[in-house]
Protein backbone atom coordinates (compact mmCIF):
# COMPACT_ATOMS: atom_id res chain seq x y z
CA UNK A 1 0.00 0.00 0.00
CA UNK A 2 1.62 3.23 -1.09
CA UNK A 3 0.69 6.66 0.18
CA UNK A 4 2.08 10.17 0.49
CA UNK A 5 0.53 10.97 3.85
CA UNK A 6 3.30 9.42 5.98
CA UNK A 7 5.84 11.99 4.80
CA UNK A 8 3.30 14.81 5.00
CA UNK A 9 2.75 13.97 8.68
CA UNK A 10 6.51 14.18 9.41
CA UNK A 11 6.87 17.47 7.56
CA UNK A 12 3.85 19.06 9.25
CA UNK A 13 4.84 17.89 12.72
CA UNK A 14 8.37 19.24 12.27
CA UNK A 15 6.90 22.69 11.59
CA UNK A 16 5.84 22.84 15.22
CA UNK A 17 9.19 21.64 16.55
CA UNK A 18 12.26 23.70 17.36
CA UNK A 19 15.12 23.76 14.86
CA UNK A 20 17.18 20.56 14.77
CA UNK A 21 20.40 22.49 14.10
CA UNK A 22 22.69 23.65 16.88
CA UNK A 23 22.91 27.28 15.63
CA UNK A 24 26.65 26.94 16.18
CA UNK A 25 28.33 30.38 16.16
CA UNK A 26 25.48 31.91 18.18
CA UNK A 27 25.34 29.09 20.71
CA UNK A 28 28.55 27.37 21.80
CA UNK A 29 29.26 23.91 20.36
CA UNK A 30 28.26 20.88 22.43
CA UNK A 31 31.15 18.69 23.60
CA UNK A 32 31.44 15.51 25.61
CA UNK A 33 34.11 14.51 28.10
CA UNK A 34 35.71 12.25 25.49
CA UNK A 35 35.49 14.71 22.57
CA UNK A 36 38.82 15.01 20.83
CA UNK A 37 39.46 18.63 19.88
CA UNK A 38 43.16 19.43 20.11
CA UNK A 39 46.31 18.46 22.00
CA UNK A 40 47.40 20.92 24.68
CA UNK A 41 50.80 21.09 26.41
CA UNK A 42 51.53 22.32 29.91
CA UNK A 43 55.19 23.40 29.49
CA UNK A 44 55.88 23.48 33.24
CA UNK A 45 55.27 19.72 33.53
CA UNK A 46 57.12 18.65 30.36
CA UNK A 47 60.45 16.89 30.94
CA UNK A 48 61.40 16.72 27.22
CA UNK A 49 61.50 12.91 27.26
CA UNK A 50 60.51 12.83 23.50
CA UNK A 51 58.23 9.83 24.07
CA UNK A 52 55.29 11.70 22.50
CA UNK A 53 57.32 12.45 19.36
CA UNK A 54 58.39 8.80 19.09
CA UNK A 55 54.85 7.45 19.51
CA UNK A 56 53.19 9.96 17.14
CA UNK A 57 52.09 7.93 14.07
CA UNK A 58 52.15 10.94 11.74
CA UNK A 59 55.28 12.69 13.02
CA UNK A 60 53.33 15.80 13.99
CA UNK A 61 55.29 16.38 17.21
CA UNK A 62 58.94 17.37 17.27
CA UNK A 63 60.97 17.82 20.42
CA UNK A 64 64.42 19.41 20.64
CA UNK A 65 66.01 18.42 23.95
CA UNK A 66 69.04 20.67 23.60
CA UNK A 67 67.10 23.86 22.87
CA UNK A 68 64.12 23.02 25.07
CA UNK A 69 61.56 23.34 22.28
CA UNK A 70 58.34 21.33 21.88
CA UNK A 71 56.59 21.73 18.52
CA UNK A 72 53.33 20.44 17.06
CA UNK A 73 52.09 20.64 13.49
CA UNK A 74 48.32 20.85 13.89
CA UNK A 75 47.81 20.05 10.21
CA UNK A 76 49.51 16.67 10.61
CA UNK A 77 47.95 15.73 13.96
CA UNK A 78 45.15 13.14 13.61
CA UNK A 79 44.03 13.33 17.28
CA UNK A 80 44.65 9.64 17.92
CA UNK A 81 45.50 10.33 21.58
CA UNK A 82 48.70 8.23 21.48
CA UNK A 83 50.89 11.07 22.81
CA UNK A 84 48.52 11.76 25.70
CA UNK A 85 48.62 8.06 26.65
CA UNK A 86 52.40 7.92 26.48
CA UNK A 87 53.04 11.15 28.43
CA UNK A 88 54.32 10.05 31.84
CA UNK A 89 54.43 13.44 33.60
CA UNK A 90 50.87 14.18 32.27
CA UNK A 91 51.98 17.36 30.53
CA UNK A 92 49.86 16.60 27.47
CA UNK A 93 46.09 16.57 27.49
CA UNK A 94 43.26 16.28 24.99
CA UNK A 95 41.08 19.37 25.00
CA UNK A 96 37.49 19.37 23.75
CA UNK A 97 37.55 22.58 21.70
CA UNK A 98 38.71 22.11 18.10
CA UNK A 99 41.99 23.76 17.08
CA UNK A 100 41.51 27.18 15.54
CA UNK A 101 41.60 27.35 11.74
CA UNK A 102 44.64 28.94 10.17
CA UNK A 103 45.46 30.36 6.75
CA UNK A 104 49.12 29.37 7.04
CA UNK A 105 50.49 25.94 7.83
CA UNK A 106 52.36 27.20 10.86
CA UNK A 107 54.02 24.95 13.41
CA UNK A 108 53.07 25.73 17.00
CA UNK A 109 56.11 26.08 19.24
CA UNK A 110 56.36 25.94 23.04
CA UNK A 111 59.50 26.73 24.99
CA UNK A 112 60.15 24.26 27.76
CA UNK A 113 62.61 24.78 30.58
CA UNK A 114 65.44 22.21 30.45
CA UNK A 115 65.38 20.50 33.82
CA UNK A 116 68.51 18.35 33.50
CA UNK A 117 71.60 18.64 31.30
CA UNK A 118 70.73 17.63 27.74
CA UNK A 119 74.17 16.38 26.75
CA UNK A 120 75.17 12.90 27.87
CA UNK A 121 77.94 12.77 30.46
CA UNK A 122 81.28 12.15 28.79
CA UNK A 123 82.90 8.85 29.80
CA UNK A 124 86.43 9.12 31.21
CA UNK A 125 89.09 8.71 28.56
CA UNK A 126 86.86 10.00 25.71
CA UNK A 127 87.20 13.46 24.32
CA UNK A 128 84.08 15.65 24.11
CA UNK A 129 84.28 15.77 20.29
CA UNK A 130 84.00 11.99 19.92
CA UNK A 131 81.02 11.59 22.22
Amino acid at each position, binding site marked *: *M*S*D*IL*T*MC*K*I*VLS*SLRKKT*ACQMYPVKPA*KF*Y*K*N*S*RGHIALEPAKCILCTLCAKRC*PTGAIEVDRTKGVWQINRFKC*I*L*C*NECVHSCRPVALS*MENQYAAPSANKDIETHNVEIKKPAAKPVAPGESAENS
Partner: protein
Amino acid sequence: MANRTIIPFGPQHPVLPEPIHLDLVLEDEKVVEAIPNVGFVHRGLELLCQKKSFQDMVLVAERICGICSLIHGVGFVQGIEKVMNLEVPERALFLRVFWGELSRIHSHILWLGLAADAIGFESLFMHSWRVREMVLDIFEETTGGRVIFDAVKVGGVRKDISKETFTRIMKQLDKVEEEYKQIAEVFIKDFTIIHRWSNVGVLSKENAAKLGAVGPTLRASGIKSDTRMLKYGAYEKIDFEPIVEHTCDCYARSLVRVKEVYQSFDIIRQCYNKISEGEIETKVTGFPTGEFFSRVEQPRGEVIYYVKGNGTKFLDRFRVRTPTFANIPPLLQMLAGCDLADVPAIIISIDPCISCTER
Protein backbone atom coordinates in the same frame (compact mmCIF):
# COMPACT_ATOMS: atom_id res chain seq x y z
CA MET B 1 19.50 0.27 -35.10
CA ALA B 2 19.67 3.65 -33.46
CA ASN B 3 22.88 5.63 -33.40
CA ARG B 4 25.13 4.92 -30.47
CA THR B 5 26.21 7.83 -28.27
CA ILE B 6 28.68 7.82 -25.40
CA ILE B 7 27.80 10.01 -22.45
CA PRO B 8 30.37 10.49 -19.68
CA PHE B 9 28.95 10.15 -16.17
CA GLY B 10 31.10 11.51 -13.35
CA PRO B 11 33.69 11.82 -11.82
CA GLN B 12 31.91 15.04 -10.83
CA HIS B 13 28.16 14.49 -10.69
CA PRO B 14 25.52 15.98 -8.37
CA VAL B 15 24.43 12.53 -7.21
CA LEU B 16 27.91 11.24 -6.38
CA PRO B 17 29.72 12.33 -3.27
CA GLU B 18 32.84 10.58 -4.54
CA PRO B 19 34.57 10.33 -7.92
CA ILE B 20 33.75 7.41 -10.18
CA HIS B 21 33.63 7.77 -13.93
CA LEU B 22 31.36 5.74 -16.20
CA ASP B 23 31.19 5.91 -19.97
CA LEU B 24 27.55 5.19 -20.76
CA VAL B 25 26.99 3.79 -24.26
CA LEU B 26 23.45 4.80 -25.24
CA GLU B 27 21.01 3.82 -27.93
CA ASP B 28 18.41 6.61 -27.80
CA GLU B 29 17.59 6.81 -24.07
CA LYS B 30 18.58 3.22 -23.24
CA VAL B 31 21.96 2.35 -21.75
CA VAL B 32 23.52 -0.50 -23.71
CA GLU B 33 26.77 -0.73 -21.84
CA ALA B 34 28.63 1.04 -19.05
CA ILE B 35 32.43 1.19 -18.97
CA PRO B 36 33.80 2.05 -15.51
CA ASN B 37 36.93 4.03 -14.81
CA VAL B 38 38.20 4.27 -11.25
CA GLY B 39 41.44 5.45 -9.68
CA PHE B 40 40.90 9.17 -9.08
CA VAL B 41 41.53 9.01 -5.34
CA HIS B 42 44.12 6.24 -5.08
CA ARG B 43 46.28 6.91 -2.01
CA GLY B 44 48.54 3.86 -1.89
CA LEU B 45 47.54 3.00 1.67
CA GLU B 46 48.41 -0.67 1.26
CA LEU B 47 52.10 0.06 0.74
CA LEU B 48 52.18 2.20 3.89
CA CYS B 49 52.38 -1.03 5.91
CA GLN B 50 56.08 -1.16 5.07
CA LYS B 51 56.66 2.24 6.68
CA LYS B 52 54.28 2.25 9.66
CA SER B 53 54.43 -0.27 12.48
CA PHE B 54 51.60 -2.82 12.59
CA GLN B 55 50.12 -1.03 15.60
CA ASP B 56 50.07 2.33 13.82
CA MET B 57 48.55 0.68 10.73
CA VAL B 58 45.25 0.31 12.64
CA LEU B 59 44.92 4.09 12.41
CA VAL B 60 45.60 3.94 8.66
CA ALA B 61 43.09 1.10 8.19
CA GLU B 62 40.43 3.14 9.98
CA ARG B 63 41.05 6.01 7.59
CA ILE B 64 40.43 3.94 4.45
CA CYS B 65 36.79 4.98 4.70
CA GLY B 66 35.02 7.71 6.62
CA ILE B 67 31.77 5.80 7.09
CA CYS B 68 32.69 2.25 8.04
CA SER B 69 35.97 3.32 9.66
CA LEU B 70 35.61 1.24 12.82
CA ILE B 71 34.83 -1.97 10.96
CA HIS B 72 37.88 -1.47 8.72
CA GLY B 73 39.91 -1.27 11.92
CA VAL B 74 38.26 -4.42 13.29
CA GLY B 75 39.05 -6.33 10.08
CA PHE B 76 42.71 -5.40 10.19
CA VAL B 77 43.10 -5.96 13.92
CA GLN B 78 41.37 -9.33 13.71
CA GLY B 79 43.89 -10.47 11.09
CA ILE B 80 46.87 -9.38 13.21
CA GLU B 81 45.41 -11.00 16.33
CA LYS B 82 44.98 -14.33 14.53
CA VAL B 83 48.56 -14.17 13.23
CA MET B 84 49.91 -13.43 16.71
CA ASN B 85 47.53 -15.88 18.48
CA LEU B 86 46.24 -13.20 20.84
CA GLU B 87 43.34 -13.89 23.20
CA VAL B 88 41.15 -10.79 23.11
CA PRO B 89 39.03 -10.16 26.25
CA GLU B 90 35.33 -10.81 25.75
CA ARG B 91 34.34 -7.30 26.80
CA ALA B 92 36.51 -5.85 24.04
CA LEU B 93 34.87 -8.14 21.47
CA PHE B 94 31.40 -7.07 22.60
CA LEU B 95 32.39 -3.38 22.49
CA ARG B 96 33.62 -3.89 18.92
CA VAL B 97 30.25 -5.39 18.00
CA PHE B 98 28.44 -2.54 19.78
CA TRP B 99 30.32 0.16 17.88
CA GLY B 100 30.22 -1.88 14.67
CA GLU B 101 26.44 -2.14 14.74
CA LEU B 102 26.16 1.53 15.65
CA SER B 103 28.30 2.21 12.54
CA ARG B 104 25.91 0.12 10.49
CA ILE B 105 22.97 2.18 11.75
CA HIS B 106 24.66 5.48 10.92
CA SER B 107 25.90 4.23 7.54
CA HIS B 108 22.49 2.89 6.51
CA ILE B 109 20.65 6.03 7.62
CA LEU B 110 23.23 8.09 5.73
CA TRP B 111 22.62 5.95 2.64
CA LEU B 112 18.84 6.25 2.97
CA GLY B 113 19.24 10.02 3.05
CA LEU B 114 21.56 10.07 0.03
CA ALA B 115 19.27 7.73 -1.92
CA ALA B 116 16.31 9.99 -1.19
CA ASP B 117 18.40 12.96 -2.33
CA ALA B 118 19.33 11.12 -5.55
CA ILE B 119 15.66 10.90 -6.53
CA GLY B 120 15.00 14.50 -5.52
CA PHE B 121 13.31 13.80 -2.17
CA GLU B 122 15.10 16.61 -0.31
CA SER B 123 12.93 16.74 2.81
CA LEU B 124 13.38 13.02 3.48
CA PHE B 125 17.15 13.45 3.05
CA MET B 126 17.19 16.18 5.72
CA HIS B 127 15.06 14.14 8.13
CA SER B 128 17.22 11.02 7.68
CA TRP B 129 20.35 12.96 8.49
CA ARG B 130 18.68 14.54 11.52
CA VAL B 131 18.20 11.02 12.93
CA ARG B 132 21.77 10.04 12.02
CA GLU B 133 23.08 13.02 13.98
CA MET B 134 21.74 11.45 17.18
CA VAL B 135 23.82 8.31 16.48
CA LEU B 136 26.93 10.43 15.86
CA ASP B 137 26.39 12.08 19.25
CA ILE B 138 26.52 8.64 20.90
CA PHE B 139 29.77 7.95 19.05
CA GLU B 140 31.28 11.23 20.19
CA GLU B 141 30.29 10.55 23.77
CA THR B 142 31.75 7.03 23.84
CA THR B 143 34.81 7.21 21.57
CA GLY B 144 35.56 10.93 21.26
CA GLY B 145 35.21 11.07 17.47
CA ARG B 146 32.20 11.52 15.23
CA VAL B 147 33.24 9.55 12.15
CA ILE B 148 36.84 8.51 12.81
CA PHE B 149 36.80 6.78 16.16
CA ASP B 150 40.28 5.32 16.77
CA ALA B 151 38.58 3.02 19.27
CA VAL B 152 40.17 -0.27 18.16
CA LYS B 153 43.72 -1.43 18.82
CA VAL B 154 45.63 -4.66 18.42
CA GLY B 155 44.63 -6.82 21.41
CA GLY B 156 41.44 -4.99 22.39
CA VAL B 157 39.85 -1.55 22.38
CA ARG B 158 41.09 1.85 23.56
CA LYS B 159 37.97 3.10 25.30
CA ASP B 160 35.63 1.53 27.80
CA ILE B 161 32.00 2.42 28.47
CA SER B 162 30.89 2.63 32.09
CA LYS B 163 27.72 0.84 33.21
CA GLU B 164 25.79 4.09 33.81
CA THR B 165 26.78 5.54 30.43
CA PHE B 166 25.81 2.30 28.72
CA THR B 167 22.37 2.31 30.36
CA ARG B 168 21.84 5.96 29.42
CA ILE B 169 22.92 5.26 25.83
CA MET B 170 20.43 2.40 25.58
CA LYS B 171 17.64 4.80 26.59
CA GLN B 172 18.93 7.30 24.04
CA LEU B 173 18.92 4.56 21.38
CA ASP B 174 15.26 3.84 22.15
CA LYS B 175 14.55 7.46 21.26
CA VAL B 176 16.62 7.14 18.06
CA GLU B 177 14.66 4.04 17.10
CA GLU B 178 11.37 5.84 17.68
CA GLU B 179 12.47 8.69 15.40
CA TYR B 180 13.85 6.25 12.87
CA LYS B 181 10.59 4.30 12.75
CA GLN B 182 8.80 7.33 11.30
CA ILE B 183 11.43 7.80 8.58
CA ALA B 184 11.53 4.06 7.81
CA GLU B 185 7.77 4.04 7.25
CA VAL B 186 8.25 6.57 4.45
CA PHE B 187 10.87 4.40 2.74
CA ILE B 188 8.58 1.40 2.93
CA LYS B 189 5.25 3.00 1.98
CA ASP B 190 5.76 6.25 0.10
CA PHE B 191 4.25 6.44 -3.37
CA THR B 192 7.16 8.40 -4.90
CA ILE B 193 9.75 5.96 -3.63
CA ILE B 194 7.92 2.81 -4.72
CA HIS B 195 7.18 4.36 -8.11
CA ARG B 196 10.79 5.45 -8.61
CA TRP B 197 12.60 2.29 -7.42
CA SER B 198 10.36 -0.63 -8.30
CA ASN B 199 11.63 -2.71 -11.23
CA VAL B 200 14.62 -0.39 -11.63
CA GLY B 201 18.12 -1.88 -11.76
CA VAL B 202 17.10 -5.52 -11.54
CA LEU B 203 19.92 -7.92 -10.65
CA SER B 204 18.75 -11.52 -10.88
CA LYS B 205 19.69 -14.09 -8.26
CA GLU B 206 21.89 -16.00 -10.76
CA ASN B 207 23.74 -12.87 -11.86
CA ALA B 208 24.25 -11.71 -8.28
CA ALA B 209 25.87 -15.03 -7.39
CA LYS B 210 27.87 -15.27 -10.64
CA LEU B 211 29.24 -11.71 -10.52
CA GLY B 212 30.11 -11.90 -6.83
CA ALA B 213 27.85 -9.24 -5.35
CA VAL B 214 28.17 -8.73 -1.59
CA GLY B 215 26.20 -7.25 1.28
CA PRO B 216 22.74 -5.71 0.91
CA THR B 217 23.06 -5.86 -2.91
CA LEU B 218 23.39 -9.66 -2.70
CA ARG B 219 20.72 -10.09 -0.03
CA ALA B 220 18.25 -7.98 -2.04
CA SER B 221 18.67 -10.50 -4.87
CA GLY B 222 17.37 -13.30 -2.67
CA ILE B 223 20.63 -14.86 -1.46
CA LYS B 224 20.97 -15.39 2.27
CA SER B 225 24.59 -14.45 2.80
CA ASP B 226 26.10 -12.40 5.58
CA THR B 227 29.70 -12.56 6.81
CA ARG B 228 28.48 -12.14 10.38
CA MET B 229 27.12 -15.69 10.02
CA LEU B 230 30.78 -16.81 10.28
CA LYS B 231 30.42 -15.87 13.96
CA TYR B 232 33.65 -13.91 14.21
CA GLY B 233 34.38 -11.94 17.38
CA ALA B 234 31.41 -11.68 19.73
CA TYR B 235 28.90 -12.57 17.01
CA GLU B 236 29.05 -16.20 18.15
CA LYS B 237 27.00 -15.18 21.18
CA ILE B 238 24.48 -13.15 19.23
CA ASP B 239 21.39 -14.48 17.47
CA PHE B 240 20.30 -12.97 14.21
CA GLU B 241 19.05 -13.96 10.77
CA PRO B 242 20.21 -12.17 7.61
CA ILE B 243 17.53 -10.06 5.98
CA VAL B 244 16.64 -11.22 2.47
CA GLU B 245 14.40 -9.64 -0.18
CA HIS B 246 13.38 -11.31 -3.41
CA THR B 247 12.34 -8.55 -5.81
CA CYS B 248 16.00 -7.84 -6.85
CA ASP B 249 15.43 -4.13 -7.68
CA CYS B 250 16.48 -0.80 -6.15
CA TYR B 251 13.41 -0.86 -3.88
CA ALA B 252 14.46 -4.28 -2.50
CA ARG B 253 17.95 -2.95 -1.80
CA SER B 254 16.51 -0.03 0.16
CA LEU B 255 14.17 -2.37 2.07
CA VAL B 256 17.10 -4.60 3.10
CA ARG B 257 18.88 -1.58 4.54
CA VAL B 258 15.76 -0.24 6.24
CA LYS B 259 15.25 -3.58 7.99
CA GLU B 260 18.93 -4.06 8.82
CA VAL B 261 18.84 -0.91 10.92
CA TYR B 262 16.15 -2.53 13.12
CA GLN B 263 18.29 -5.66 13.25
CA SER B 264 21.28 -3.62 14.41
CA PHE B 265 19.21 -2.05 17.19
CA ASP B 266 18.32 -5.59 18.25
CA ILE B 267 21.97 -6.75 18.19
CA ILE B 268 23.00 -3.73 20.28
CA ARG B 269 20.36 -4.67 22.89
CA GLN B 270 21.71 -8.24 22.95
CA CYS B 271 25.21 -6.79 23.43
CA TYR B 272 24.01 -4.72 26.37
CA ASN B 273 22.44 -7.76 28.01
CA LYS B 274 25.34 -10.14 27.38
CA ILE B 275 28.39 -7.91 27.97
CA SER B 276 30.32 -8.74 31.11
CA GLU B 277 32.71 -6.69 33.21
CA GLY B 278 36.42 -7.22 32.73
CA GLU B 279 39.56 -6.18 30.92
CA ILE B 280 39.35 -4.36 27.58
CA GLU B 281 42.78 -5.21 26.19
CA THR B 282 45.56 -7.78 26.37
CA LYS B 283 49.24 -6.98 26.36
CA VAL B 284 50.84 -7.34 22.95
CA THR B 285 54.37 -8.72 22.90
CA GLY B 286 56.45 -9.72 19.91
CA PHE B 287 55.81 -9.13 16.24
CA PRO B 288 53.47 -10.87 13.78
CA THR B 289 54.84 -13.78 11.78
CA GLY B 290 52.61 -15.48 9.25
CA GLU B 291 49.62 -14.57 7.15
CA PHE B 292 45.86 -14.44 7.57
CA PHE B 293 42.71 -13.63 5.59
CA SER B 294 40.28 -11.78 7.82
CA ARG B 295 36.64 -11.38 6.72
CA VAL B 296 34.16 -9.02 8.34
CA GLU B 297 30.76 -7.62 7.37
CA GLN B 298 30.60 -3.91 6.74
CA PRO B 299 27.41 -1.91 6.16
CA ARG B 300 28.13 -2.24 2.43
CA GLY B 301 29.05 -5.92 2.48
CA GLU B 302 31.93 -8.26 3.06
CA VAL B 303 35.43 -6.80 3.37
CA ILE B 304 38.50 -9.02 3.16
CA TYR B 305 41.76 -8.16 4.83
CA TYR B 306 44.98 -9.98 4.00
CA VAL B 307 47.93 -9.40 6.31
CA LYS B 308 51.36 -10.98 6.13
CA GLY B 309 53.92 -10.42 8.86
CA ASN B 310 57.62 -11.21 8.68
CA GLY B 311 58.62 -11.08 12.34
CA THR B 312 59.47 -7.36 12.36
CA LYS B 313 57.26 -4.47 13.37
CA PHE B 314 56.52 -3.74 9.71
CA LEU B 315 54.18 -5.96 7.73
CA ASP B 316 55.24 -7.53 4.46
CA ARG B 317 51.90 -7.22 2.78
CA PHE B 318 48.54 -5.68 3.51
CA ARG B 319 45.68 -6.05 1.08
CA VAL B 320 42.05 -4.96 1.28
CA ARG B 321 39.17 -6.13 -0.93
CA THR B 322 36.37 -3.70 -0.21
CA PRO B 323 32.63 -4.32 -0.80
CA THR B 324 32.21 -1.62 -3.46
CA PHE B 325 35.02 -3.17 -5.48
CA ALA B 326 33.07 -6.46 -5.51
CA ASN B 327 29.81 -4.65 -6.33
CA ILE B 328 31.05 -2.83 -9.46
CA PRO B 329 30.59 -5.81 -11.89
CA PRO B 330 26.98 -6.36 -10.67
CA LEU B 331 26.44 -2.59 -11.04
CA LEU B 332 27.45 -2.75 -14.71
CA GLN B 333 25.02 -5.63 -15.18
CA MET B 334 22.21 -3.57 -13.62
CA LEU B 335 23.00 -0.57 -15.81
CA ALA B 336 22.83 -2.50 -19.09
CA GLY B 337 19.34 -1.98 -20.48
CA CYS B 338 18.17 0.74 -18.09
CA ASP B 339 16.99 4.28 -18.92
CA LEU B 340 19.49 7.13 -18.74
CA ALA B 341 17.34 8.84 -16.08
CA ASP B 342 17.57 5.76 -13.83
CA VAL B 343 21.39 5.67 -13.83
CA PRO B 344 21.89 7.85 -10.69
CA ALA B 345 19.33 5.85 -8.69
CA ILE B 346 20.96 2.55 -9.70
CA ILE B 347 24.51 3.69 -8.93
CA ILE B 348 23.44 4.94 -5.50
CA SER B 349 21.60 1.66 -4.84
CA ILE B 350 24.84 -0.31 -4.37
CA ASP B 351 25.99 2.31 -1.80
CA PRO B 352 29.25 3.08 -3.62
CA CYS B 353 32.24 4.05 -1.50
CA ILE B 354 34.97 5.02 -3.90
CA SER B 355 37.55 6.03 -1.30
CA CYS B 356 37.30 2.44 0.04
CA THR B 357 37.58 0.95 -3.42
CA GLU B 358 40.71 2.86 -4.37
CA ARG B 359 42.42 2.85 -0.98
